[in-house]
Every structure is written in structure tokens, then in C-alpha cells.
């Protein structure tokens, strides 16, 4: 019996936010296709994390733990995941489109001889009667290409279909009283020639990751200089519990680190709420944030292209509007 395998990202025994999104979508696709859903977690803490998948309706899960995956190595993890996939022979494997998947899905495609579809924003899976056992599922995905300037629809001729899902797009759905039966899976010996993780430095504590944030506040050249950017953007982001983003122009000018860049040569974000402050809306920036659910633009130029994309706009100077907005958000939260 084929299945859908949901690879749940975890750290030290705790599921990451994306894991709930991936597990929930797997459960939805299991219901639409009639296939069982199996979860999988890998690395130290995998058993504890796999046990938490019940909260999303996943009834059984693999915990891939042991010496070969005791510290992160792209090669060792890919070998272990490929072995687990071979053992379960799923028709569909789902991951979250995070750094972890970026490091794994291409390797898995090469090891399993099936080209993956990365960073998908829609997926359907229907039973395909009469096909060979491992292909008993017709999977169709939609994914942004050209950084969101176009959308492509892909289907799979190979099994398993390897798919990563863009964060913040697929809703996590908790179920009451769900329990997971955890089965441990011993990873194979790692490849002799492999990279090893030798250092890991956490970014500032409490910092909100741009690609996972529910709200993003981005600033552009309209902020005039790095000091004004920090003085106006950071307090608004803090008041909203938002991550800070930046346009390419200000990253190239050295005002902000490139890790904050939103756009075609930066990060692609899809938050519930996106603030574009002093950003005119160059096409390469729009590409990185156009799938945000609600977009607010604040710009002194009423003809700025960003206003065509934004749901709501304020025409005005960021020096005047942003402090007022920050105070109003603080007041709003104080009332709740």
C-alpha cells in the first residue's frame, strides 16, 4: 500500500512551524486520494518531534535517529531520508520549502531518480486507478517561476513525486486528541565523503525569520539613510511582532544585510500582511512579495508602481507616517 510521506522539520525534539503546515497538507491530500499519511522526522530529538505530529492528524510516523544523523551533514541526511523513502515507497513525499529542503530535495531527486518540484504554492493529488502500484497517484503542483512573475503547473511521470511547499501558504490544521504511533528507523551508514557541520551561530535571540513571519515590514530607498531606516522601520516591526525586510537598493547600498533582501535576488515572502515603506515597487521587488495576502504601501510618490499592487496605500512621507503608525499599533495592542 502506497502512502504520502510528510517530512516534518524539527530542532531538538520540537516541530518547526513549517512541519505543521506540511503535515496538515499531507492529511488533506491523504483524504482526497485515499492514501495513508506517514510522518517522518530526522536527527536528534526525532522521536519526540514525530510524536507531536498527532496534533495535525498524522497517525503514524518514522523517527530517523542514530549516529549517522547525530550532527547535520547534507550527505548523511539525504542518504538516511532516501533509505526511509525506499522503505515506505510513498507515492508522494512532502517537505517545507526551507533551507533544510533546499539542501535535501535536489539530493533526494538525484538519489531516487525523480526530479522534484520545489517551492509549490498549490498541490492536488488524486487516485489514479489502474496505474502501477507506486504510481497510483496523479499529483499536480503549481509553483512560481521567474520569482513569481509567472506560475507553472507541473505533473510527475516518476515516483515518488518529491514536492516542497512554500511556508505560510498551506494552513496548519490542528486536530483534537490526535495521537501518533512512532516507529524508529535506523539510518544507513553515512557516505564516506561528506560535509560536516562544524559551527552554528544563532542569529540575534528573538529575531523573527523573514520567510516564516506572519507580518513583514520592509523599507526602501525612501528611508533616505541607514539611521532613518533603523529609527523608523525597526520600532514598527517590533510593535507588530514583524520581521524586517529591505529592498535591493538599500541592501546593495550596504544599509541592511543581504539576508533581509526581499525580491528576485533575495528572499521570497508570503506573509499575511506586508508593509512596503518608501519602496517604489521595482519589478524585481514585487516578484518577491506579490503572494503576500494583504499589502500596505506607504510612499510619498502617489504614482509609485507599488500602489498598483497594494491593497491599501497611504501617500505620505515615511518620516511622518511611520512613527504615527507605530504609536497607533502600540495603542491597539494595549487595548487587547
Amino acid at each position, binding site marked *: 500500500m502506497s502512502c504520502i510521506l510528510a517530512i516534518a522539520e524539527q530542532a531538538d525534539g520540537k516541530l518547526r512551524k513549517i512541519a505543521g503546515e506540511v503535515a496538515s497538507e499531507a492529511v488533506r491530500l491523504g483524504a482526497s486520494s485515499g492514501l495513508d499519511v506517514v510522518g517522518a522526522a530526522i536527527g536528534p530529538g526525532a522521536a519526540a518531534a514525530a510524536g507531536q505530529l498527532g496534533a495535525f492528524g498524522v497517525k503514524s510516523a518514522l523517527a530517523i535517529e542514530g549516529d549517522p544523523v547525530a550532527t547535520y551533514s*547534507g550527505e548523511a541526511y539525504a542518504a538516511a531520508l532516501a533509505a526511509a523513502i525506499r522503505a515506505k515507497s510513498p507515492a508522494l513525499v512532502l517537505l517545507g520549502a526551507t533551507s533544510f529542503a*533546499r539542501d535535501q530535495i535536489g539530493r533526494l531527486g538525484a538519489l531516487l531518480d525523480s526530479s522534484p518540484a520545489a517551492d509549490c504554492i498549490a498541490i492536488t493529488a488524486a487516485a489514479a486507478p489502474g496505474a502501477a502500484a507506486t504510481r497510483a497517484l496523479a499529483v499536480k503542483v503549481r509553483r512560481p517561476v521567474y520569482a513569481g*512573475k*509567472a506560475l507553472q503547473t507541473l505533473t510527475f511521470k516518476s515516483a515518488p513525486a518529491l514536492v516542497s511547499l512554500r511556508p505560510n501558504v498551506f494552513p496548519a490544521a490542528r486536530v483534537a486528541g490526535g495521537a501518533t504511533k512512532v516507529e524508529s528507523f535506523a539510518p544507513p551508514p553515512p557516505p564516506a565523503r561528506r560535509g560536516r*557541520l562544524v559551527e552554528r551561530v544563532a542569529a540575534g535571540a528573538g529575531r523573527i525569520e523573514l520567510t516564516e513571519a506572519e507580518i513583514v515590514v520592509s523599507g526602501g530607498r525612501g528611508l533616505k539613510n541607514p539611521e532613518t531606516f533603523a529609527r523608523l522601520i525597526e520600532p514598527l516591526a517590533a510593535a507588530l511582532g514583524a520581521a524586517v525586510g529591505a529592498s535591493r537598493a538599500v541592501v546593495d547600498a550596504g544599509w541592511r544585510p543581504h539576508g533581509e533582501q526581499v525580491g528576485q535576488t533575495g528572499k521570497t515572502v508570503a506573509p499575511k500582511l506586508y508593509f512596503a515603506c518608501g519602496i517604489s515597487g521595482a519589478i524585481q521587488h514585487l516578484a518577491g512579495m506579490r503572494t503576500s495576502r494583504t499589502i500596505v504601501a506607504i510612499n510619498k510618490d502617489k504614482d509609485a508602481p507599488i500602489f498598483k499592487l497594494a491593497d491599501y496605500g497611504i501617500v505620505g512621507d515615511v518620516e511622518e507616517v511611520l512613527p504615527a503608525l507605530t504609536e497607533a499599533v502600540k495603542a491597539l495592542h494595549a487595548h487587547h
Partner: protein
Amino acid sequence: MKVTVCIKRVPSTATRLRIAADGRSIDEAGVEQVLNPYDEFAVEEALRIVDRAGGEVTLVSFGPDAVTKELRNGLAMGAHQAIHLPADASFRDPLSIARALAAAIGPTQPELLLFGRQAVDGDHAQVGLMVATLLGMPAVPDVVKLELGPGSLKAWREVEGAIEAFELPLPCAVTAQKGLNEPRLPNMKGIMAAKKKTISTQAPAAAASTLVLESLELPPERSGGRIVGEGAAAVPALLKLLRDEARAL
């Protein structure tokens, strides 16, 4: 040190796209094509490595004949030779492209293999790690800093909430992220020298795609565009809309 860099020709990020009549590709008329921006970082890093350690940089590209312009540009930056694997513009999945690249690169036995982190057309961000895996080379994606040691490489990457450093034995592969370096522009001497450098052409190994491209379309237009008001006076109205209409706060 033998360093190989894979490059791709892609539409400029400033380009507005139209879908071609076949409904499966972009209309290339009037579209400016450039070297993939992340590949520039990979080429630059390769040149810096051989500037310090000596050796040769080879460029490899799988794609239409027009990519010889980007290959020539890389040679003008300082790369030593180039290999072109000609292919028409029809859809191919990342694994079939990776197989063609791996088949061409494998016999040349590079000590270091560099890619851009992703091509800004297909945006899969897979080919680099696929080629490395097919060739049995350890690899790190999204690298922002590199240090070459005797027989090994240390590579840093940014992940959600942390910076990680990896140690890899040579030969190995990395994909380049923005921040790795500032790519140089070719100078006149480089451009002249590039005219004498060799771009060899090899028929790519055939590999079938397992992904099927069903359609390509433009994203739905956003219906937005409502100006709430001007200046700080518009802030209360904006917050009310975000809370009550968009339910975003």
C-alpha cells in the same frame, strides 16, 4: 586547482514577461537575457580562488547557442576555457539538466565545482546539489563565505535563524548566495584576451524529463490599489481597514 563553474542564461530580473502562444513558455521577443545573477558570484569566487591558489577556471553551460555570449563574458572576467552543451529552449526538468552537466563535468575531474544558488527563471534551486550528488561530491548550498584549506574547504551558509559552517573534503561543490563577493566587470584587456580563449561544444548526454510542464501563466492581477488617505492623518483609517476588512491585525 581545477575549478569548474556552471552558468545559465536567464531573462533579466528587470524584465516584464508575456506568455507565448503555446501557453507553456515565455515570449522571448524583447526580453533581455543576462548571466544568471547568482552565477556571477560563482564565477567571481572561482577567479579569486585561482588568483590565490593558481589553477584554471572552466565554465560549463547547458542551453541555447546564444549562451556563448555569457560564456564569452565569463572568459573576459578571467575564466580560462568554456564548454557549451547545446540544447534548445524546450522545457527540461532539473534532474535531466543535472545529468547532462554531470556527464560532461565528471570526466574532467574538477577539485571544486561552483554554481549559483538558483537560476532566476526556473527557481528550483536544485541543479547544483543534484550534479554534486550524481558525481559523489559533498556539497553545501547558499554559501556566503568560503575558505580553502589544504585538501578541504570551509563554507558558511545562512539558514533560518542561524549561520552554519561546514567542512568538506575536496573535491566538493558549493552554490553561491548573494553576499559571497562583489563580482568584477570585465576590463578591455580581459575582453581582448577572451577572444582567443576556447569555447568547445559537446553534444549533451540525453536524459528524459520526469516532470511534465502542463502550462505557464501570469499570476492573477491584484485588484488592490486603494489609497486610504494622505499623511499621518490616514493612519487610523488604515488600521481600521486592516483589522475589520482585511482581518490582518
